[in-house]
């Protein structure tokens, strides 16, 4: 038995991952979560649902995504071989669509004509708007006003897809405020609305079902590693905001004790400056936000802290509860990469491999630059290349002093 075999038995019946997770919501939402839990439990074991999901992943999303050996970049770092799990090649350009395809099927089965979502960088919003368009569902996406400003391209993409983007002006005007507003919408329109949460956070059963839908990437990567490398990789790396792409890659390997795992949070200006979005790497206190207990950046009075990151998608003060547990039991090493390191990694991969990563994804790449040189050339790292960088061209151009 492996050291970490218990980890695949979670969450418990109430959605707890050890002390984390749970269902901390106002009473109005309890019935909707009970209903979702019941529907999902039935569908999880239903071969027809799984077949429909698999079909959509193959023919709509374009799975399986390749596992690509980044030879030039590996050679230049002078250590381990780096393999990229190409989630950027999915339809809509990121891992997010794996989850929205699954949740859209749930929404359809539940008969609700309207879906809502929160989004940070806009990738989850785009992925939600995409599946809503395909199924003819009404779609509204909440997005922090600050993020609407820095991710204009994705805002327009959602508009073209027929979704309504609602800028959120409260609080810090970023992802957490978008999630507050989406929860307020849901509590008001709970009868006809399905809330498609974009990460492995939120109240039970969301962390469970988002994990399940994203795990397809890890299952493929495990199989591809055996085929292409001839064995399991020595290490996995993924960026962590809420943690859905990391969860998707890591989960199918969680009992493989010999595979080291690194979750890379947004270090912003540097964890030591306090201006970051790295609750795990900074050892933030335990707290409750958006329906679950987790590591949560907050001040001594329990007010949720402002976060800072160059990437809107990681700009969140909490993290999925299963990651919180994995930190405590030592299964995953959670580290941070700061904005400067992230930009260097973004440019390096673009130049050396012809692959332009999302700034979120570039956090994982930044840690590969640290880790790979400490390993031997016959060792292997698999990185979740969770999204493509088209949406970030404006942000990078601005830093280069270029205005379009």
């Amino acid at each position, binding site marked *: 038995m492996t050291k970490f075999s218990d980890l695949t038995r979670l969450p418990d019946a*109430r959605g707890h991952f050890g002390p984390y997770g*749970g*269902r*901390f*919501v*106002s*009473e*109005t*939402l*309890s*019935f*909707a979560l*009970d209903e979702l839990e019941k529907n999902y439990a039935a569908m999880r074991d239903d071969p027809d649902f799984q077949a429909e999901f698999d079909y959509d992943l193959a023919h709509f999303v374009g799975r399986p995504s390749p596992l690509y050996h980044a030879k030039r970049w590996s050679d230049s770092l002078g250590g381990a071989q780096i393999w990229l799990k190409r989630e950027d090649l999915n339809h809509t350009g990121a891992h997010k669509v794996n989850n929205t395809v699954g949740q859209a099927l749930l929404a359809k089965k539940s008969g609700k004509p309207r879906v809502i979502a929160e989004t940070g960088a806009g990738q989850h919003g785009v992925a939600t708007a995409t599946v809503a368009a395909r199924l003819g569902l009404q779609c509204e996406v909440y997005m922090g006003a600050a993020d609407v400003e820095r991710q204009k391209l994705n805002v327009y993409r959602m508009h073209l897809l027929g979704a309504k983007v609602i800028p959120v002006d*409260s*609080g810090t005007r970023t992802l*957490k*405020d978008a999630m*507050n507003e989406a*929860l*307020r919408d849901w*509590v*008001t*329109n*709970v*009868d006809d609305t399905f809330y498609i949460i974009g990460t492995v956070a939120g109240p039970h059963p969301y962390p469970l079902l988002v994990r399940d839908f994203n795990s397809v990437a890890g299952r493929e990567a495990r199989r591809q590693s055996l085929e292409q490398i001839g064995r399991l990789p020595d290490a996995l790396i993924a960026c962590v905001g809420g943690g859905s792409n990391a969860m998707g890659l890591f989960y199918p390997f969680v009992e493989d004790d010999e595979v080291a795992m690194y979750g890379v949070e947004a270090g912003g200006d540097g964890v030591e400056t306090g201006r970051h979005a790295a609750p795990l790497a900074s050892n933030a*206190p*335990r*707290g*409750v*936000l*958006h*329906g679950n*207990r987790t590591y*949560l950046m*907050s001040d*001594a*009075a*329990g*007010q*949720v802290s402002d976060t800072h990151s160059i990437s809107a998608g990681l700009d969140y003060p909490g993290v999925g509860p299963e990651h919180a547990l994995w930190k405590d039991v030592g299964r995953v090493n959670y580290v941070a990469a700061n904005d400067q390191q992230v930009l260097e990694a973004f440019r390096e991969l673009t130049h050396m491999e012809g692959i332009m990563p999302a700034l979120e994804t570039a956090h994982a790449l930044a840690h590969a630059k640290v880790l790979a040189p400490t390993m031997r050339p016959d060792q292997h790292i698999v990185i979740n290349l969770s999204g493509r960088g088209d949406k970030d061209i404006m942000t990078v151009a601005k830093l280069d002093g270029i205005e379009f």
Partner: protein
Amino acid sequence: MNRIDQRFAELKAQGRKALIPYITAGDPGPEHSVGFMHALVEAGADIIELGVPFSDPMADGPVIQKACERALSKGTRLLDLFDMVREFRRTDTTTPVVLMGYLNPVERIGYDAFADAAAEAGVDGVLTVDMPPEEAVEFGPILKARGLASIFLVAPTTSNARAATICAHGEGYLYYVSLKGVTGSASLNAEDVASHLAPLREMTELPLCVGFGIRDGASAAAVAQVADGVIVGSALVNRIADSADDPAAIAPQLKAVLGEMRQAMDA
């Protein structure tokens, strides 16, 4: 006997219904809150719900969101609320005070430390919006050991099976949320409320109090016909917002709004 139970016993004996105002503590500045509490009692409050300001009030509409922002911008912390209640208790030893807010500030202080401080200050009940009874397994007994009532919400969407669980865990009173939505939402239908309260009456002896959507004497009186208590928040917080720059003008307005409700309910 807890002050809340005492108060409901008195009201029942008098054939009257409870009027329960909510204000966000520290809005528009922590120095004003105790004065507002006394003003509310003078205008006919039976119980006071004192809101703990929070950075992310997910169940609240814009009115109380902004109240939280004003209170936090003046540095109001959960610890300051204990000082406020302690000061309030110097001259008012009978009006029950319920702290209403979100879980995170309590988690940060720690359940035991919170319960000790609340009981010592003279708090009577605690309503944590994002903590249903299933998640209160640890917190509930800690409150109970200090004589603090755990007050829970029941919503229009709550099934009878869940309502029975909530009734079994609830103390003080049940807070029935009159509509699907956030605080400060539009309208309340008294008939609809009555039909939801009927099955609850079968399940519990707890007083049934109704909040969300009560904005004037007429809606307060309509709810008082069918419930044991009327909870009013945004209608008061709106008055605070209007005069946030002129705090001296606020207390008379709170008294006017609440006084009209008291009169309509007692008529």
